[in-house]
């Protein structure tokens, strides 16, 4: 039997459409459930005050601050390291075994389970380097986890700058550094920013890497230095939902809503930067 080409096309359009909806559906459902159940918890008091009665009441301010500090700390370490490494790999290193080794290392680094990063951070930063459970140790651990994302995204952004631009620059007598700094980097920055923000938003939501390196179970004070422990949203959610009896769902969902919104804001800003740049880009 020969199937009509038009019918075939219709069947496949339907399948492709269905697949797309299946992808969107979980995101929408998850977000709606969190929103509906959590929105009543969101009050100024919830966001800006300390937890009370063993976290069964009050706010989640220390956890929000903790997550913001950790994200910032991660950016401080991973941005320069990741971007410089990406520039070196794309613009300077020649095609040899060392570079291949580094590239394989980066790919494998991206595949390491996050709990392993947590234990690695515990071993290296907390114990061996004697930083203790601290913002510093947590940020460093998250940085290592984020590095492959930032390096890969930055490399892609740098490689996307047309080779012809580089050739023109060289042909006018530019040195390699002049070409990289005046042509390549300025044109790669939007792509680098998008990738880095996505990497950071992942770091903001991670639990396992901060479990042993920084996160406090209950600490109703704000950190005074980078050597202090902090509460952090992802771990706080874990604590609220499994470790403390008698926490109302409202507080649980409210906390989740805050974390998800934080990550969403980061992701959307990445998308906006990309969209804005696409409009401007003319090659």
């Amino acid at each position, binding site marked *: 039997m020969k199937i009509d080409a038009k019918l075939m096309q219709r069947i496949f359009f339907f399948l492709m459409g269905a697949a797309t909806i299946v992808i969107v559906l979980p995101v929408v459902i998850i977000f709606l459930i969190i929103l509906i159940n959590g929105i009543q918890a969101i009050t100024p008091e919830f966001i800006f005050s300390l937890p009370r009665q063993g976290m069964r009441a009050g706010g989640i301010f220390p956890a929000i601050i903790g997550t913001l500090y950790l994200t910032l700390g991660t950016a401080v370490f991973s941005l320069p390291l990741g971007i410089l490494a990406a520039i070196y790999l794309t613009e300077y290193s020649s095609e040899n075994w060392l570079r291949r080794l580094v590239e394989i290392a980066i790919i494998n680094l991206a595949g390491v389970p996050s709990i392993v990063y947590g234990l690695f951070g515990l071993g290296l930063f907390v114990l061996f380097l004697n930083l203790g459970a601290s913002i510093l140790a947590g940020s460093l651990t998250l940085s290592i986890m984020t590095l492959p994302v930032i390096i890969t995204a930055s490399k892609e952004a740098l490689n996307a700058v047309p080779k012809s631009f580089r050739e023109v620059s060289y042909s006018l007598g*530019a040195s390699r550094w002049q070409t990289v700094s005046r042509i390549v980097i300025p044109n790669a920055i939007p792509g680098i920013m998008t990738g880095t923000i996505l990497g950071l938003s992942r770091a903001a939501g991670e639990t396992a890497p901060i479990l042993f390196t920084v996160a406090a179970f209950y600490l109703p004070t704000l950190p005074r230095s980078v050597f202090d422990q902090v509460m952090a949203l992802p771990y706080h959610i874990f604590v609220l939902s499994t470790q403390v009896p008698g926490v109302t769902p409202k507080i649980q969902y409210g906390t989740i809503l805050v974390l998800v919104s934080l990550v969403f804001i980061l992701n959307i800003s990445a998308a906006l930067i990309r969209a804005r740049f696409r409009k401007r880009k003319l090659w």
Partner: protein
Amino acid sequence: MVAKIEVKNLNCYYGSYHAIQNLNLEVEKNEILAIIGPSNSGKTSFMRTLNRMNDLLPDFRMEGKVYLDGLNAYRDIKHSALRRKIGMVFAMPVPLPLSIFDNVAYGPRLHGVTSNSKLKEIVERSLKASYLWEEVKDRLVSPAFCLSGGQQQRLCISRTLAVEPEVILYDEPCSGLDPISTAKVEDAMRELKGKYTQILVTNNVKQAARVSDRTAFFLMGELIEIDQTPLMFTAPRDKRTDDYIAGRFG
């Protein structure tokens, strides 16, 4: 008198591919030399060897000597200084993602010109030299991508002129242009004659006849013959040159 550019026993390889075979050639000061030949005859390879653009390719290797004003281009002169003296216009116009002004000012800025009045002067002079000034003088700040293909290519010539080179290499500069734009680019080249040594690689035999003083014919990485352009087109010595010019192959 020393030739502007002298190439001795040049052999070029990309990996195991032998792109240029034992080539000897002299380019005289301020002449326009056209290089014609079918694709894969080594024309572009030859030109990119002169300003060492091939050095950017990882598997490129060359033997032999290239002299600029009697100086060994691969030993006595730094990359950047050499490329400053030997400018290049590429096959497809490549405006940098900058304004018209900044495109032309890119080279001078690289080499340390910072004064705005000096830059303005260089930009105006360079744009006038490539016949583009009248068309763009009121919109120097708009992006170079907004120009038409022919205008972009003349912008690229201006950008090359702005670093005050002594030699200009054109790598099939009109391959993407319509006849009117092509004529304007050729006008620009004729206007620059006498002040610069120009080497034009072209697939278009008629273009070589229109603008060049001498013509060289390349085939399969070899220089078949080189002569005064009128002679070359009326009485070539080699049968293969005759066949190519007459359009019997290539």
